[in-house]
């Protein structure tokens, strides 16, 4: 199995490494700096695996991007995860026109150096 590009953010099963505060706030990615809702920190913030399922809020095709390491065009989506956090990240390309409200699922795709990185695609 290929290594993950960002193993601190997601798992080989394409689930997301989020966190949950003692106050109930669910966030992504996991961190222990402090809770954005209540300010609790350290051990009050515990890892919580997020399913990688969510609903598309919006998507767009980027035609122009300054970073040559990420050649355009590529697609970006804003997804409300079923556990609450909203993530903005790359969609599996080429992405068809996806309507807001579409059920989305995280998946892993091969990228440079034989690694795999997370993308979202409409759930089949």
């Amino acid at each position, binding site marked *: 199995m290929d290594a993950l590009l*960002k193993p*601190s*953010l*997601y798992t080989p099963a394409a689930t997301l490494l989020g966190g949950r505060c003692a106050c109930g*706030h669910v966030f992504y*990615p996991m*961190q222990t*700096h402090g809770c*954005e*809702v209540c300010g609790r920190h350290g051990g009050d913030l515990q890892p919580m695996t997020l399913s990688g399922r969510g609903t598309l*809020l*919006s*998507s*767009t*095709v*980027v*035609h*122009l*991007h*300054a*970073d040559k390491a*990420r050649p355009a065009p*590529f697609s*970006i989506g*804003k997804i*409300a995860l079923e556990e*609450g*956090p*909203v*993530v*903005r*990240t*790359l969609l599996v390309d080429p992405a068809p026109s996806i*309507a*807001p409200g579409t059920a989305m699922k995280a998946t892993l795709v091969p990228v440079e150096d034989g690694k795999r990185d*997370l993308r979202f695609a409409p759930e089949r």
Partner: protein
Amino acid sequence: MARTLKDLRPVYIVGIGWHPYQNPGPTPYVTLGVTAIRAALADAAIEWPAVESAYVATALLGMAVGRPMLRHLGATGLPIAHIENASASGSTAFRQACIEVASGISDVALAVGVDKRNPVRRESTGIDALAEDAIAQFTHFSLLTNEYAHRHGVSFEDIARVAVKNHRNGAKNRNAQRQKERTLDEVLGGKRVAGSLTALQCTPVGEGAAAAIVASEDGIRRLGLDASRAIRVAGSTARSERVYPAGQGFDAVLTKETAGLALQEAQISARDLDIIELHDAFTVEELHYIENIGLCPEGQGVHLLKEGALEIGGRCAVNPSGGLIAMGHPIGPTGVGQIGEIVLQLRGEAGARQHRGARTGLAHMVGVGAVCYIHLLQKA
């Protein structure tokens, strides 16, 4: 909040000035800055030693650039503070200058914004992100454009009309970076950056400077300034992003909260606004913000735009300067420049851009973070 600006000593804008916003070039920032300040001093008819305190807004110039610039006006020993607050840097410097005068610590204070286009550097928070490097500002606003169009059943063509209006206003502004009228076809036909967003629907970040001098009533009397040209700062509010329900973007909510507080402070309603200068770095923003400032219900902004209500001479002139899309957005100066435009309008000195009978204006800025600043200005 114990007190608002309105509860303290009255503050007036007595002088404004610019170095025109322009494409990036070889002009030293010092030249940009002192040009704007000298223009503001001349506008106020005061000499530099009368200025008791300076707030220098800049986001892209690096550390401590203020005194190497201000010393060329005469090193009077005045206190200098640098303000960095992303796009809202200039608005923040202006607010701090107002607070200093309102508090009674100074009678005359300067807010100057100056910037040149340099790479943005932001230290890592230590928290990784999936692909934030792939999401430029215009991509964020393209997502927002698609969301807005879908939610309200509005066409991309209609959203692009914001740019047509603002380029038309900018064409009449000699301080604007873009001074050319554009047809809807030209706006839509330009280079696409993300989704439906084209280059002419995005702000051209350039360079420039803007300055505003504020004074107390004591200062105005002591220096013998022309009180009839002084414009009252009737409200000043600032808020930052909180945690909102999924799907409710900060872009709209933060402006609604901040503008609501400002209107309450000045005891006026959105219907009283004759002029709005707002953060239209991308076309969809203008619609979001006028709706959340309260000009019309959500999703109705395009109707106001198409019936001409947002034009100079309409119900409320929105971005008569040309806004960020045409006047430009050199970052540090932008919020100060908005204040200057509203002052011109309320004095009746805006020339070809004059919105007749303007008495009340609102300046709106958001900055990455996100932060939001609102100022309300009124003819004394």
